[in-house]
C-alpha cells in the first residue's frame, strides 16, 4: 500500500504542470536573472569608488574603530576599496558637498555619527550602511565593556581589547571576501527549499476528507491514514531533492557560483530546509480551508514573503529586519536557512549554523505536531 500510494503520488506531482514550473523552473529562472543582474553590479562596483569627506576632529581621530575601518575601506592597496576619503573640517566638507565633489560627509559628535547628504541614492545607502555597521559594533563593544566591569575588573581591559581588536580584524577579513550577492543566492536556495511546501501541500490535500472529495475516498478506504500521509510526504520530499539537485548543478556547474568549501554542511542545511518546507506545506495544507489553487497561491505567497524578508530582493531587508524586528526573522524558516548559509560562508565558528539547524528542527517538530493533531482526528466535526 505504501509503494502504491508513493508511486501514484509521484505520478500526480510530476504531471502537475504549474507545480513543476514553481518547483523546478522558477528557481532556475530566478538564478539566471540574479546572475545576469549581479554580473553588471559587480562590474560597476569594481569601477566605482565613492567620494566622501570625514570631519577630521579630535573625536574621530581618537576613535580607533572608525578610523581604522575607514582607513581600510579607502586603502589603495585594497582590491575592494570602497571610498575616496577627504579628511577636512566641517566647513570645507560642506563646500565639497555643495560643489558635488563628494556624495556626503561624516562627522562624529558625542560618540554619534552624523551623515550629511544632498541627495538619496545607492552611494548614500552604502555610506549609511557602513556607518551603521560601525556604530552597532561600537555599541556592542561598549556594552560588553560595561558588563564586564561589574565583576571582572581584572580581566576587563585585556578581554575587551582583544574583542575590539578582533572585531576590527574581523571587519578587515570580511571585507576581503565580502560578497553580498552570495546572500541573494542563499535566499534563492532557501526559497527553493520552502517550495517543497507547495509539493507536500498538493500531495497532502488528497488525503484530507474535509478538503477534497479525493480525501474522502482515501479516508473511507481500508488503509491506515498514517501510511497514506507518510508515503505522500516522502514522495514530495523526493521531488524536492531532485529540484534541489538540479538547482545546485545549475548554480555550481553552469553559473559557477562560489559557495566556499562547506558543501557537505550546505547540503545538510538544504535537506533540513527542505524538510522544513515539507512541514510548512503540511501545516498550510492541513489548516487552511480553501481550494487547491488558492492554497497553492497562499503557499507561494508565504514562501516569497519569507524569502523577501530574509534578503532575496536586497540584503538591506535582512539587515533591517534583523535590526528592528529580530523575532520575525527568528520564526521565518526562509531566514533560518539563509542565515545558516550566511553563517557557513562568513564565519569559521559553526555555532550560528547549528543554531539555525536547531531552529529549523524545532519549526519542523511544531508543524508536524500541530498537523498530526488536526489530521489524526478519527472523525471530523464537519466536512
Amino acid at each position, binding site marked *: 500500500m505504501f509503494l*502504491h500510494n508513493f508511486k*501514484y503520488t509521484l*505520478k500526480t506531482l510530476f504531471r502537475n504542470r504549474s507545480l513543476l514550473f514553481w518547483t523546478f523552473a522558477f528557481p532556475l529562472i530566478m538564478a539566471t536573472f540574479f546572475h545576469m543582474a549581479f554580473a553588471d553590479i559587480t562590474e560597476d562596483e569594481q569601477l566605482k569608488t565613492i567620494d566622501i569627506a570625514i570631519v577630521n576632529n579630535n573625536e574621530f581621530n581618537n576613535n580607533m574603530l572608525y578610523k581604522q575601518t575607514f582607513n581600510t575601506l579607502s586603502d589603495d592597496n585594497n582590491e575592494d576599496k570602497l571610498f575616496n576619503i577627504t579628511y577636512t573640517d566641517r566647513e570645507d566638507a560642506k563646500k565639497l558637498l555643495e560643489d558635488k565633489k563628494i556624495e556626503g560627509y561624516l562627522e562624529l559628535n558625542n560618540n554619534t555619527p552624523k551623515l550629511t547628504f544632498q541627495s538619496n541614492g545607492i552611494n548614500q545607502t552604502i555610506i549609511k550602511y557602513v556607518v551603521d555597521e560601525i556604530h552597532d559594533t561600537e555599541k556592542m563593544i561598549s556594552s560588553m565593556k560595561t558588563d564586564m566591569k561589574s565583576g571582572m575588573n581584572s580581566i576587563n581591559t585585556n578581554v575587551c581589547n582583544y574583542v575590539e581588536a578582533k572585531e576590527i580584524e574581523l571587519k578587515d577579513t570580511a571585507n576581503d571576501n565580502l560578497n553580498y550577492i552570495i546572500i541573494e543566492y542563499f535566499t534563492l536556495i532557501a526559497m527553493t527549499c520552502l517550495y517543497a511546501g507547495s509539493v507536500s501541500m498538493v500531495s497532502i490535500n488528497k488525503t484530507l*476528507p474535509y478538503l477534497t472529495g479525493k480525501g474522502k*475516498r482515501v479516508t473511507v478506504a481500508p*488503509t491506515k491514514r498514517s501510511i497514506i500521509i507518510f508515503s505522500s510526504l516522502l514522495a514530495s520530499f523526493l521531488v524536492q531533492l531532485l529540484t534541489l539537485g538540479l538547482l545546485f548543478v545549475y548554480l555550481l556547474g553552469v553559473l559557477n557560483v562560489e559557495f566556499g568549501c562547506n558543501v557537505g554542511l550546505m547540503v545538510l542545511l538544504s535537506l533540513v530546509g527542505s524538510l522544513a518546507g515539507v512541514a510548512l506545506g503540511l501545516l498550510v495544507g492541513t489548516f487552511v480551508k480553501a481550494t487547491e489553487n488558492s492554497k497553492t497561491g497562499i503557499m507561494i505567497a508565504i514562501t516569497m514573503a519569507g524569502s523577501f524578508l530574509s534578503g532575496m530582493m536586497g540584503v538591506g531587508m535582512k539587515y533591517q529586519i534583523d535590526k528592528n524586528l529580530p523575532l520575525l526573522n527568528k520564526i521565518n524558516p526562509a531566514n533560518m536557512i539563509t542565515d545558516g548559509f550566511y553563517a557557513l560562508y562568513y564565519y569559521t565558528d559553526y555555532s550560528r549554523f547549528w543554531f539555525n539547524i536547531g531552529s529549523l528542527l524545532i519549526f519542523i517538530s511544531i508543524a508536524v505536531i500541530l498537523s498530526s493533531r488536526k489530521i489524526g482526528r478519527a*472523525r471530523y466535526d*464537519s466536512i
Partner: protein
Amino acid sequence: MEKVIEVKNLTKEYKKGTKAVDDLSLEVYKGEIVGLLGPNGSGKSTTINCILSLLKYSSGSIKVFGKEMNPDSYDIKSKIGVVFQDVSVFDELTVYENLDYFCGLYIKDKAKRKELVEEAIELVGLQDFKKYRPKQLSGGLLRRLNIACGIAHKPKLIFFDEPTVAVDPQSRNNILSGIEKLREEGATIVYTTHYMEEAEILCDRIIILDKGTVLASGTSDELKELADIEEKVTVEVNDLDEKYIAKISDLKNVDVVTYSGNILLITYKKGKNNISDMVEFLKNNRIKYNKIFSERPTLNDVFLELTGKELRD
C-alpha cells in the same frame, strides 16, 4: 433478513446548535436498494458521512455488517464502496490510472486489481476512454468515472450520493442500469437523491427525510398511500370562465380545483372514472381544451402532504 446497516437514534448537531440529523433510525437489508429521498439540506449526505465514520455524531449508534462502525474498522471498510456527490478523481491521472489507484487502496494483488478495473470500466462504458485524462471527458463520462472509482473493488455495500446530478439523459440511463446490475450481482445499495422519479424506478424501499428526520418509509406504492389524494386530472384549457370552476368543484369526488395560467388541475380523494366524467363535463359545456390527462399521486405529493412544501423547494 440480514441487516447490513442499522442506525439507531442518530443525532448530529453542529457547534452552532443546528441539527443536521435528529434522532434518525433506519435499517438497510442485504440485497436491497434503499433510497434516501429528501430536498437539499435534509440530512441525506450527513447521515451517510456519519455511517462512514467521516463525521462525528452527537448521539446514537451505527452498525454496519453487524459491527459497530469506527474510523479504524478496516474489515468493514473493505466491503464498502462510496460514490460521492462531487466528482473526486485526479486530473493528472488517466481514467485507467484513477481506477487503479482507488481500487489499489482496497486490493493489493495486481492481477486481481487489473481484472476488477477492466470490469469497472466495462460496467460504466468507458472502454474507449481508458487513456483519457478527466479534463478530456464530458460531464456525463466524468460522472461515470466517478462511479467506477467507487465500485471497482466490488464492494458488498455501496453508497451513491446523488450520482446523477447534472448528467445528460444517456449517462443517467447508463448509471441507473449500472446500479441495477450491481444489485443483481449481490450488492446492497443506499441511494440518495432528490429526484423522485429515480427513486421510484430504482429503489425497493424509500426513506423520505426532511430536516434530519425520517418522515416516512416504505415502497413507492406504500408511500403513495400516505397521500390524501387518489387521482389528479390536468386539463390544458384557455380562458376558462369562473362559473365553470365553481361547477367543477361541485362534481362527484372532486376535492380541490385550481386554475392557473391555462392549466386546470382537479384533485380527487377517491372514486373511479373521474377523467371520463371530466371529459363529459367539458363536452356538455362546449369547453374547448388542448389536452387532458390523469396522474396517480407522486412522491412529491406525499412529501407535500407530509411537509407542506415541494420536494424540490
